[in-house]
């Protein structure tokens, strides 16, 4: 095959891949504009409307379809994701920092940490529920589920930071020490500003993984539901396009999050570029 033919087929393959990737999302987005309250979650679109978006915010006249019971769940999920993000990132950064030096048993500790993202979520969730029951601990999203979220997202933050530290030039820290600066202050003034882009990535990982975590939360969160559980709960009754409208809004929220991340990254890109140039010289 000649070069341009190769290019063409690779292009077609990529296009197909993108369709598979985003097709479901596009279908969902289209159906969210179905008319209401009589329109269902299927084609054809009877009439284009923003009824289901208004329905989400309680702006429509009362009908037989109950509003999505997500308000509390959304707050819980955001709270849980923020808590998880903070704790996992702090743990990830400190653990990766510890792994910069070889220590006795570092191999075992490494696999113990990574195990947290390998084991099946449902089993861990169930296990946590049993442990809580045996010990007589109440299950809550902010206690038992929170612990599981940290166990799950901490390895991701840890691996991201490990990769960042791998490329970090330790002589900059040694230079700071030799100027009389304590290791703690060196970390704050030299190391942290330079690894900050990596810390942002670790935070993003932890937040998004926790925000839509389902299987672990299912058994471990007790009475009060998180957002993924609440949405799943509405499926078991009857599916209306209001779920799709909510899906679109959550996706937009995720994009906003990514946008913030990108903006913060852009700010530190100049710094990263400077490092790159210094390494070349």
């Amino acid at each position, binding site marked *: 095959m000649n070069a341009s033919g190769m290019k063409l087929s690779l292009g077609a393959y990529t296009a197909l891949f993108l369709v598979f990737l985003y097709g479901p999302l596009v279908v969902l987005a289209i159906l969210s504009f179905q008319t209401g309250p009589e329109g269902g979650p299927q084609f054809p679109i009877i009439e284009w409307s923003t009824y289901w978006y208004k329905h989400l915010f309680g702006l429509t006249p009362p009908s037989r379809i109950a509003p999505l019971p997500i308000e509390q769940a959304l707050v819980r999920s955001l709270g849980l994701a923020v808590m998880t993000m903070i704790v996992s990132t702090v743990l990830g950064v400190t653990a990766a920092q510890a792994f910069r030096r070889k220590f006795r048993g570092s191999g075992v500790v490494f696999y113990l940490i990574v195990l947290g993202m390998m084991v099946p979520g449902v089993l861990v969730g169930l296990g946590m529920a049993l442990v809580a029951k045996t010990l007589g601990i109440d299950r809550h999203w902010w206690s038992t589920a929170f612990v599981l979220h940290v166990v799950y997202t901490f390895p991701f933050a840890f691996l991201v930071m490990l990769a960042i530290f791998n490329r970090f030039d330790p002589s900059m820290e*040694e*230079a700071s020490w030799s*100027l*009389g*600066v*304590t290791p703690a*202050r060196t970390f704050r003034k030299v190391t942290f*500003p330079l690894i900050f882009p990596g810390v942002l990535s670790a935070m993003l990982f932890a937040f998004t993984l926790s925000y839509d975590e389902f299987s672990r939360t299912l058994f471990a969160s007790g009475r009060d539901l998180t957002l993924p559980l609440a949405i799943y709960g509405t499926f078991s009754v009857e599916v209306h396009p209001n779920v799709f409208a909510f899906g679109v809004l959550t996706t937009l929220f995720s994009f906003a999050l990514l946008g913030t991340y990108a903006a913060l990254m852009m700010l530190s890109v100049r710094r990263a570029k400077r490092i790159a140039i*210094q390494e070349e*010289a």
Partner: protein
Amino acid sequence: MSTVLQLKNITKTYGDMRALNGIDLALPGDAYISLLGPSGSGKTTLLRVIAGFEHPDGGAILFDGKRIDTVPPHKRGIGFVFQNFALFPHLSVAQNIAFGLENRDVDPVADRRLVDTRVRDIISLVGLSGLEGRAVTQISGGQRQRVALARTLVTEPRMVLLDEPLGALDANLRARMRAELRAIRERCGVTFLHVTGSEAEALAMGDTVLVLESGRIAQSADSDTVYNRPASPAVARFLNCYNLFPGRIEGGVFVGGSGQFALGSATPSRAASPAYAIRYDRVSVRPREAAIAEDEIRIEANFVASEYSGAAVNSFFALDDGRVFEVESHLSHAAPETYAEQGRYALVWKREDALVYA
């Protein structure tokens, strides 16, 4: 001159490799000391042990008369200039230089104006005026070198360790920075310990030259002594200006694979194994039939090639046992001679010019 740094029997092992094999040395205050060693001789390890980045397996380090083996790097008061400069890429030139003053544990300078004054003074000392606000990536290699030096000097350490500080610069700049480093050191009055793999740099810069050889100090002397009287065959080989022959001494004659050389009046230096050394520029090349004086030694060899370096020509000859013999002829003494390819010549030197190790 008082001793500022003293090392006693320092050892350091990595796995099976002995990086430092019992280092003993005493460095005077207010001096430029160069530490010369081939790659793998442990010179960077020695520097890192003195700075506290690595811990020695045994021995004692005394700085200003106090033991510092267990003192962490930030409490030692010893500056370090890295080969890659290790500047802080998120800070400007002035911020890099002010970093130590503002952030050090002992006696940090909180007064903004005082910091500015000290930074301005050191910037003019190292010749960086006008670049204060630049990012450290917007300046040239030589300027970065100066920032690294200024950043260390502004904290007024008693001693500065420099790990191949000129290694990252191009040849032209390297020659200029040599003179500048010496001048800056004299103005600050601190001790510089300058590690290098280049014999020319070590000889040119050091008031004292230390030669490190497989984890030991092989020689510690001034440049002239090191160059003219290397303490061991290993030092002579590393200086890259001696033809060396292994062999043995039998009744006033050195017997080697390339020939037998009558010895001069000087007593041989002590060494682990006997060797005979003759400096490249002590040898003259003559036609085979030329007569020699009574105090001269002569061997025959085939001409291989020569290398022109401006002030001198280095000619390479193959001895009968395959060994390569190098002769350096200074062009200020005579016009360059051309030798016939594979031609056979006599190589002649004075008996007294040779160094003999036994």
